[in-house]
């Protein structure tokens, strides 16, 4: 029995190691490329442990006069992602409450339709949206990004908030109602504070999705002035300097990674609360 246990442990640690390497190696490669001189990256006796660590690629990318200006990209992405997440929460919070607690007819059909939209091909909606935006000369604006992003993210955010509201105890609301609390007061003063973890999770979710969105800005914006980070990074792939490209990729990655690591708890909670329903 004891021998069996050792064997089992050996097997577990061995496979954990393999999983770690396979999942992490690509990212490690990117980091390695970003901190080594161009001539070493391009040489054939490449080593997987850096002998010489430099940060000039990062410095180059972060220079204000670099070909694809990363500050503009980060600023635009921050504005767009914040606006999108904010709008999503404002719209989704009452909608989720209505779906979770109120006597809304055809509740399941509404929720099902909202979620299933997400699985339809995005390009189906993008073609006419492009035509509409161009005909009202709204392309190349922040608006042309925030509105589609919000619509794309909204169904998911509603679903997240709904599963969080489902887990709140009903008694609190009933007690408040007996005390003469109107639904609006209930939403603002009681549900909103109780729902804080759910709201944070939903906010992050919307933020990440907007930060990584690529197809929408690619089609709806041509002007470099409102280029997002993701788009800016793609434009830098035309450049042949591989080290700088990797550095730009890491800079794009950092905000989302920090959010992910800090709030992995919340996100896992969302996933868990969704699937065991």
């Amino acid at each position, binding site marked *: 029995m004891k021998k069996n246990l050792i064997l089992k*442990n050996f097997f*577990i640690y061995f496979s*954990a190691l393999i*999983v*770690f390497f396979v*999942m992490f190696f*690509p*990212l490690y*490669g*990117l980091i390695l*490329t970003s901190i080594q001189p161009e001539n070493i*990256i*391009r040489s054939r006796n*490449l080593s*997987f442990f850096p002998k010489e660590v430099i940060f000039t690629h990062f410095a180059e990318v972060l220079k204000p006069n670099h070909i694809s200006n990363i500050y503009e990209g980060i600023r635009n992405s921050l504005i767009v992602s914040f606006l999108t997440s904010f709008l999503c929460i404002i*719209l*989704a919070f*009452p*909608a989720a409450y*209505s779906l979770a607690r*109120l*006597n*809304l007819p055809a509740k399941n059909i*509404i929720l099902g339709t*909202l979620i299933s939209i997400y*699985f339809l*091909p*995005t*390009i*189906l*909606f993008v*073609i006419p949206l492009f*035509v*509409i935006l161009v005909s009202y000369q709204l392309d190349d604006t922040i608006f042309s990004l925030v*509105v*589609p992003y919000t*619509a*794309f993210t*909204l169904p998911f955010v*509603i679903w997240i908030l709904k599963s969080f509201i489902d887990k709140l105890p009903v008694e609190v609301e009933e007690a408040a109602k007996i005390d003469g609390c109107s639904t609006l007061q209930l939403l603002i003063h009681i549900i909103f504070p109780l729902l804080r973890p759910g709201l944070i999770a939903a906010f992050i979710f919307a933020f*990440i999705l907007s*930060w*990584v969105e*690529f197809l929408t800005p*690619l089609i709806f914006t041509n002007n470099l002035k409102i280029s997002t980070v993701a788009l800016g990074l*793609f434009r830098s*792939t035309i450049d042949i300097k*591989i080290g700088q490209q990797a550095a730009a*990729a890491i800079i*794009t*990655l950092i905000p*989302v*990674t920090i959010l*992910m*690591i800090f709030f*992995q708890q919340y996100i896992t909670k969302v*996933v*868990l609360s969704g*699937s*065991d329903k």
Partner: protein
Amino acid sequence: MTDLLNQPSNSQFKFSREKILAFTLILPSLILVFITYLYPAIFTFVISFAEYDIIRLKIKKFVQFKNFEFLISNYLFTSSVLRTIYFGFLICVCTTILSFLIALLLNEKFIGKAFLRVMIVLPWAVPSVVSGVLWGQMFHADTGFLNALLYQLGVISGYKIWLADPLVALHVIAIAEIWKAIPFMTLFFLSGLQSLPSEVFEAAAVDGANVFQRFSNILFPLMLPIAIPLFLIQFVLAMKSFDTIFVLTRGGPGGGTTTLNYFIYQEAFETFNLGRASAAAYVLLIITLAVVLIPTISRFLIKFFWGNK
């Protein structure tokens, strides 16, 4: 008497007031979703039967089924449809198997588990453009790690140009997609595994069932209800993939990595043939619906014919 008459109507009034409130709360979301989804979906449907003038932004003329006929007779289109189905199937089979195995691993107790979980979730946070850049560098002909690794191990005698071969390029994109898709599905599988009653396994172990028996007779049937929806969702998402293809190969070489989604993009925003692009978008929609609906319908039929026995 008046009291008795009033009571039901009063409660009905209250009832409908709650309904109105419920609708008011959800209405803004519904309006936004309808403007950005339903209206465009109808618009795309209409212009899939027309020639669209991209400069004047109006319909030139209706051509009935010409767009669809053109697509079906077009080799690039038919091959991209088949490629899309193969691509989607490959990705969701690999992702489902790998995610399930990783979830089984994460369900065990070991040192460094929390760290490993963060590492596994990480690719999900990687923007697909970054993942495109990253895998592009990995498979780069001159500077790629894969070439360096295989060359140093002596597997290949010279550096290979991976992305120049259409078939290899398609699989490189599939690898990139699988790597990005694993985290999300692993988390779902893990939560499914954790919700299973552990008594069942203990009982089976006491009864002398070995690992494989426990897997095939208990774990597999219990996990199937979670695995099937995940599998389908992944299929649909894989057919939608665009960013990685755009960054890595732009549909090339020789159209070898042009999936249907990418084909539509090219028709719409490179050659500006919106009518044909819309027709192709509806073909993609039909395939997507088929993928989602076939299992549902078959399950319904099975229930209908065999359920009562």
